[in-house]
């Protein structure tokens, strides 16, 4: 108290000069009396000691962290590259723990209330019978799922993770703008926000008193493990896949918690039990943390047009063999109109008023409410009653402050009368403001805080802070990220240092988790290995072509004709310097990598993105011949960089084995094809040189053989030399080694079916007479490799 008074008498710190919250608006930094809230003291004095340049250098650290970590969200648009950098606002929102605890107390009551409403809507429907909730709001809501009616959740609870969007009233009290029960997002982004502020605000910023986030995740992970029930059943995360706007968060959380990230097609229902298809066969799942909207989870009983679901999932829930986080159908609680009834429902069900009020809401289904709304349109926003949008997510058919957002609408009164029960009106709220850094100074911007709660054995546990939305202007709709809003960390600050903890530091987290590899992930890793290698082969071919074109300037040169003919067999055209086939191969590789981002290093992904960017840049600006050959050299170095990352940095998991197997098989196949074509006597002169160049063995050949290249020396070096890392035999040895790491051995020490299939091929090469291999041998080898690929698919990938 003394400090704040001192601050007042000494005048405003320079950092806060000109920081003026709007009258009639609460502010997080400045209280109603114009004094800085004490909880900000340490932060403001540390920041105030820095120059503007120093502050911006600090903020750049946070931005760099987020960019290097690859944090993005997906903007829904027609833009072909809709991934956007995470829009981070560097100044955290700081809330004192006493205030936070009372918020959480109110939200725990609300979470329990939502659980009871959910249980009623999927059970006896007493709220409807008692007239506390209109039947039509439930029956017309597409997120109320009829097949789920009467199904009691295996865990005994419908809701396990709930998020709330809250803000502060002008009078300083807190209120709820909306509840997220379907598949709340934000927890993973909160972790990244915290990582970014940790990088930004190091000494001398006082951070010991900030509550850590890790404890929340450890408790939630333990709760999920508890839900998965009987021993041997696992918990996993269900995602809609890379097309979702928060897919980054799904991959991040899966990695952070060490859980499998699954899509609907990864699973089947077998004898009433949900199972994941892994490379080791079907394995039962006991709990699913669902990040996929309920409607899409089962095309058999729910939305039949869904490609994202698993047929029979509802049946597994009906039989009680699976816990769902949250129960299917929980999205019904998100409809705007329910806010109009929750205060009364709280009194009816619990005898208690809501500790934390929600946004004032009027459902336009009765004449009395319509009359009230018509009389107050200037202070309201009016929109779809059943929409699950938050109040600041305004659609085209929303009226706000007495006017429509889009102009082509009739009068509001007529609209309310015509649409009636389809509409809901909500108070046009004034959100509190919090400091944001804009143009070199702090300015007050509207904010909401997202609070996430998880159910544990001992009740609701809350993630302490981590996520706030900051508006880019005073307009409410500017809070939405899709409309320029940003996101800030939220610090819950105590008066004394809090115990340090993280997922890693905890003893139970030290035991490594045994990894189970979903078959689809294995398939994508295998094909990633093949496509990248195929891409590299194509680049080498194009370089060989354009080097010779630069040399002769004559496309009719027999070697050029031969190379062009060979490449056209693979769909690679030579009339363009950068043919479309090259882009397509890289897209295929990235497509595979994009589906396994939870199992794939961020550096590896960035290396692939970098390749794609390079390719994009040189397309259309590079001429055939010397320039093209040069660019191919650059691409080769980059793709080798990617392979180096995979080889040097990727953990030797089963997943890596599939990737490496794909690469080795593709390399063996590519080289067999080259040798079958360019080493025959019917080839134009220079064919052997081409083969050596494609096999990256020009120098080696010169060193190993004192004579000119002959079919014998070239095939020996490229096919049979066990010390040449590009030779075919070397690939087969690698595949043999990898096949032994894969599951499927009938008994310990016994070879797998894949090993038994690789062995004879390897042996044949090992025992081949040097200098005798000809086209027919290589053609047969290619057939054997194709069969090997099919066998691998049959054994592991379905």
């Amino acid at each position, binding site marked *: 108290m003394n400090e704040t008074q001192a601050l007042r008498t000494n005048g405003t710190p320079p950092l806060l000069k000109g920081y003026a919250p709007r009258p009639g608006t609460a502010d997080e930094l400045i209280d109603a009396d114009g004094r800085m809230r004490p909880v900000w003291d340490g932060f403001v004095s540390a920041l105030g000691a820095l120059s503007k340049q120093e502050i911006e250098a600090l903020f750049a650290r946070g931005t760099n962290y987020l960019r290097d970590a690859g944090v993005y969200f997906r903007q829904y648009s027609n833009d072909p590259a809709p991934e956007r950098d995470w829009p981070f606002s560097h100044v955290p929102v700081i809330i004192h723990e006493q205030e936070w605890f009372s918020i959480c107390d109110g939200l725990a009551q609300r979470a329990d209330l939502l659980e009871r409403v959910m249980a009623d*809507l999927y059970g006896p*429907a007493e709220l*409807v*019978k*008692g*007239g506390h909730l*209109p*039947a*039509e709001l*439930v*029956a*017309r809501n597409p997120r109320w799922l*009829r*097949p789920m*009616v009467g199904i009691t959740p295996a865990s005994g609870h419908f809701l396990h993770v709930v998020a709330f969007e809250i803000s502060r009233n002008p009078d300083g009290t807190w209120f709820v703008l909306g509840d997220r029960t379907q598949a709340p997002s934000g927890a993973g982004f909160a972790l990244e926000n915290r990582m970014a502020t940790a990088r930004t605000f190091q000494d001398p910023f006082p951070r010991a008193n900030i509550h850590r986030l890790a404890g929340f995740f450890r408790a939630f992970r333990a709760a999920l493990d508890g839900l998965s029930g009987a021993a041997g059943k696992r918990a996993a995360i269900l995602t809609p896949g890379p097309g979702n706007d928060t897919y980054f968060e799904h991959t991040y959380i899966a990695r952070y918690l060490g859980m499998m990230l699954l899509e609907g097609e990864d699973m*089947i*229902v*077998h*004898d*009433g039990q949900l199972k994941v298809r892994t490379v080791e066969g079907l394995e039962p799942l006991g709990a699913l943390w669902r990040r996929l909207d309920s409607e899409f989870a089962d*095309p*058999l*009983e729910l*939305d*039949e047009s869904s490609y994202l679901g698993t*047929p*029979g999932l509802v*049946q597994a829930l*009906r039989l009680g063999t699976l816990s769902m986080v949250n129960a299917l159908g929980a999205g019904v609680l998100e409809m705007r109109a329910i806010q109009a009834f929750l205060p009364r429902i709280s009194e009816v069900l619990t005898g208690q008023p809501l500790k934390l009020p929600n946004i004032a809401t009027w459902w336009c289904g009765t004449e009395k409410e319509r009359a009230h709304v018509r009389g107050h349109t200037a202070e309201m926003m009016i929109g779809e009653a059943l929409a699950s949008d938050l109040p600041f997510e305004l659609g085209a058919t929303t009226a706000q402050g007495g006017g429509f957002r889009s102009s082509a609408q009739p009068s509001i009164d007529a609209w309310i009368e015509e649409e009636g029960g389809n509409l809901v009106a909500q108070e046009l709220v004034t959100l509190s403001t919090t400091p944001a850094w804009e143009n070199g100074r702090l300015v007050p911007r509207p904010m909401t805080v997202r609070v996430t709660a998880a159910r544990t054995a001992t009740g609701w546990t809350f993630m302490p802070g981590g996520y706030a939305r900051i508006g880019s202007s005073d307009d409410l709709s500017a809070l939405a990220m899709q409309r320029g809003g940003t996101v800030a960390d939220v610090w819950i600050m105590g008066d004394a240092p809090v115990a340090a903890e993280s997922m890693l530091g905890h003893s139970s987290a030290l035991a490594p988790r045994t990894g189970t590899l979903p078959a689809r992930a294995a398939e994508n890793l295998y094909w990633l290995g093949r496509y990248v290698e195929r891409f590299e082969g194509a680049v080498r071919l194009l370089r060989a072509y354009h080097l010779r074109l630069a040399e002769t300037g004559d496309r009719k040169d027999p070697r050029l004709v031969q190379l062009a003919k060979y490449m056209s067999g693979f769909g690679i055209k030579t009339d363009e310097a950068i043919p479309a086939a090259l882009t397509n191969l890289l897209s295929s590789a990235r497509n595979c990598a994009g589906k396994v981002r939870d199992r794939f290093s961020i550096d590896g992904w960035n290396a692939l993105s970098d390749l794609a960017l390079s390719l994009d840049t040189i397309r259309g600006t590079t001429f055939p011949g010397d320039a093209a050959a040069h660019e191919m050299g650059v691409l080769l170095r980059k793709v080798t960089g990617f392979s180096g990352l995979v080889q040097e940095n990727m953990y030797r998991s089963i997943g890596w084995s599939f990737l490496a197997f794909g690469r080795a098989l593709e390399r063996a196949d590519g080289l067999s094809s080259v040798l079958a074509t360019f080493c025959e006597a019917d080839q134009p002169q220079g064919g052997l040189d081409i083969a050596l160049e494609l096999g990256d063995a020009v120098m080696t050949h010169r060193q190993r053989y004192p004579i000119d290249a002959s079919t014998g020396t070239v095939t020996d070096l490229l096919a049979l030399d066990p010390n040449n890392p590009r030779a075919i035999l070397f690939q087969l040895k690698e595949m043999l080694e990898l096949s032994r790491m894969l599951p499927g051995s009938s008994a310990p020490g016994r070879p797998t079916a894949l090993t038994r299939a690789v062995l004879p091929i390897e042996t044949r090469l090992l025992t081949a007479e040097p200098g005798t291999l000809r086209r027919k041998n290589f053609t047969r080898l290619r057939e054997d490799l194709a069969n090997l690929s099919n066998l691998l698919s049959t054994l592991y990938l*379905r």
Partner: protein
Amino acid sequence: MRYDVKLQIEYEYAGTSDHARNLLHLLPAEIPDRQRIAASLLTVDPVPQERRDLFDFYGNLMTFIAFHEPIDRISLTLSARAERLLQPPGLEISPPLTALAREIGEVRRLDGTAPHHFIGPTPRVSPDPAMTAFARAQVTPDMPTLEAVRALGRALHGEMSFDPDATEVDTPASEAFAARHGVCQDFSHIMIACLRALGIPAGYVSGFLRTIPPEGEDRLEGADAMHAWVRAWCGADVGWVEFDPTNDMPAGMDHITVAVGRDYSDVAPVKGVIRTAGEQDTSHSVDVIPLPAA
């Protein structure tokens, strides 16, 4: 009236699959005072590894089947003996259209028979301005609901022509209406859209029609395959009334009900696809033979 019903559906798959799961709405259910099922048997060939019968939200019988071995065809055979009961003449006093909304609002229930499920848009029936305009032109605001249902059904039957080859199973109702042709599924979806446009709760009924008409009467359209018609909620006193727009008649002694729902998506006879892609061929035949009076 008692009938022997026989239904045969065959699916052939171009590619075999390792897993298949289907949801069937084929078994007719008992309906108090309306329909009795003396016996019914649904045979699935090959025999599925999993099979389970359950009642759905609306009280229909549904059958889950699953195969965990490769199959290249499925054959479904239903044999049932069903009795359609003569209904006592019901109340003819239904509220005028203007008063229906209030009666609906007074129903505080969420079970499968509540009218609330049958008003808003559903997966296969969305509001369409052309159908709404057509519906409004057939009625007056003070017309009793029951009369409005019949007037609309009659008008639709006059407007539309029955054409088994004009539409597919997933043709939208608005498209079939624009072309003024279709099969029983289209007639039913169009009538449902029109009824809902008038504020009348309306749903879809799947079932069978007697194959050979009584002597001296015309054969009804839609008797060669599973049939569909419409039910409309005509106020708290009258309740649900069934009407067959394809044949412009109330659904009566010649109609055997299999399942009711909001639209086709709730009662599709066979749901679920085989995991692997490939062309699939189907055939479908129905026989409904009246039995001599006992």
